[in-house]
């Protein structure tokens, strides 16, 4: 059959409003802190579009949102969440609590159930009771609170590593000992860095740069953060929860 003759088998050509922009995000909750991280590469297919496009955003002094998937949807979604949080601040003269932000994100995602924001969200921060928390979402708003979660292109590489190192899956504690329920901040940071260097090695869509946001509960000491390379404080006040970013290079190949 003549391949140019389409009359015999009509075809529907349709505009596809989505694409995938690669990258990976990850968050881990500690007892009284949380770490939310993402690489900074943005890609489409085999093209690296840019080596620096942030995927992790400070929402309030105790909430950080990581967004992964279709970058245009992600940026628009973050913009709208930030706008809702600003309205909340104007109405109530305080920042929205973390669990409320989590529910807000569910509602906003589900509102687009039949034309979804093609993004995986991970929300990390500090709850009202001072505990570190991580919430993870699917694109249409299903969510749960967890201790750790990886999402994005290298989810299948990073999540099993986290399951093993944080939930101690497939590990036997030494006789007479038990696995710790929460890890200290320096060890969590080491795990995050290892996760991303590992994902960078094995996944072509991960690399270029790493941004790790650390949220510390009120009154928490710096817990080993002092003097760490590439540290920058993002909090607006020093007597509440505090937010820091740590920026690291990842391989660019």
């Amino acid at each position, binding site marked *: 059959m003549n*391949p*140019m003759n*389409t009359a015999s088998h*009509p*075809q529907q*050509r*349709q*505009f*596809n*409003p*989505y*694409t995938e*922009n690669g990258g990976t995000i990850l968050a881990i909750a500690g007892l009284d802190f949380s770490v939310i991280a993402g690489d900074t590469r*943005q890609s*489409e*297919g085999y*093209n690296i*579009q*840019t*080596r*620096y*496009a942030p995927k992790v955003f400070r929402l309030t002094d105790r909430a950080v949102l990581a967004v992964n998937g*279709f*970058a*245009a949807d992600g*940026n*628009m979604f973050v913009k709208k969440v930030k706008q809702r949080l600003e309205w909340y601040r104007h109405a109530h003269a305080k920042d929205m609590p973390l669990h409320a932000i989590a529910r807000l994100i569910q509602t906003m995602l589900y509102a687009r159930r039949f*034309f979804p924001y093609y993004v995986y969200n991970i929300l990390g921060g500090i709850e009202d009771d001072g505990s570190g928390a991580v919430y993870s979402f699917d694109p249409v708003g299903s969510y749960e609170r967890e201790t750790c979660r990886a999402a994005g292109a290298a989810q299948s590489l990073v999540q099993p590593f986290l399951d093993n190192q944080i939930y101690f899956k497939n590990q036997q504690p030494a006789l007479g000992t038990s696995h710790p329920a929460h890890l200290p901040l320096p060890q969590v940071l080491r795990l995050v860095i290892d996760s991303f260097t590992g994902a960078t090695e094995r996944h072509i869509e991960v690399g270029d740069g790493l941004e790790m946001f650390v949220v510390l509960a009120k009154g928490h000491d710096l817990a080993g953060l002092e003097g760490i390379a590439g540290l920058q404080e993002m909090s607006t006040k020093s007597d509440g929860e505090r937010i820091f970013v740590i920026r690291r290079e990842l391989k660019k190949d």
Partner: protein
Amino acid sequence: MDHFPGNWGRLRNDDYDAYGTFPIPHRPSNAPKDTFSEGVQRTQQPIVTGTSVLAIKFKDGILMAADNLASYGSLARFKDVQRLRPVGDYTVIGAGGDMSDFQYIQSLLDDLVVEEFTSQDGHNLGPKEIHEYLSQVMYGRRTKINPLWNSILVGGLKDGQRFLAYVDLLGTTYSADTLATGYGAYIAQPLLRRAVEGRADTLTEEEAAKILEDCMRVLFYRDARSLNKYQIATITASGVSISDSKALETSWEFAEGIRGYGAQTQ
């Protein structure tokens, strides 16, 4: 980024359009196909298209380049088209993809600039504002499944700040020291990165112009929808200027030595 704007936003189908000639034999039909498909048809395909746009940062600002061709499928239809346009006093935009959509975007931006001018409030639109506006327009249209079929570079300099960013028909945005749309994303971007990355703050205008010229030449050699006639836009603290069309020097002697295909048998 797919080089063929006709394939953007959908899977490539060689059975359907092996030689990229879709505009002529496969014009979209707006007639109702059956009793159920009445209504506005808005999913579209680009018709008259422009190819790559390149841009880099240099010491004193931004340099952008695009050729003067607007293609009709594989036909080189219009050979004196300006794909780089100034917007306001600090910005240049360059577009690939559908040229009628680009002209529409220009009129949107012109309306915007006039509106800002008439308010006489002491504020001027810079490249950041124009890119944000364009991003919202492009994302808004993709969300209505009625996209403006372009990939656009926005470059400029205002208050000593250089700005260079991309936006396309999906509303995808990003920013970098070197940017290339269309086929240029495959062929020119690696060359640009090798020449510019880490040197954006030291490159002179002459060096930057040479880099772009070399890339435009490589694109003309390799991209069948390109033209050896192009323009360069310069944005520095002294303002925006878009050059007259320049011709690319090319040499095809190497073709003489090629053996083994076509009519040439030994």
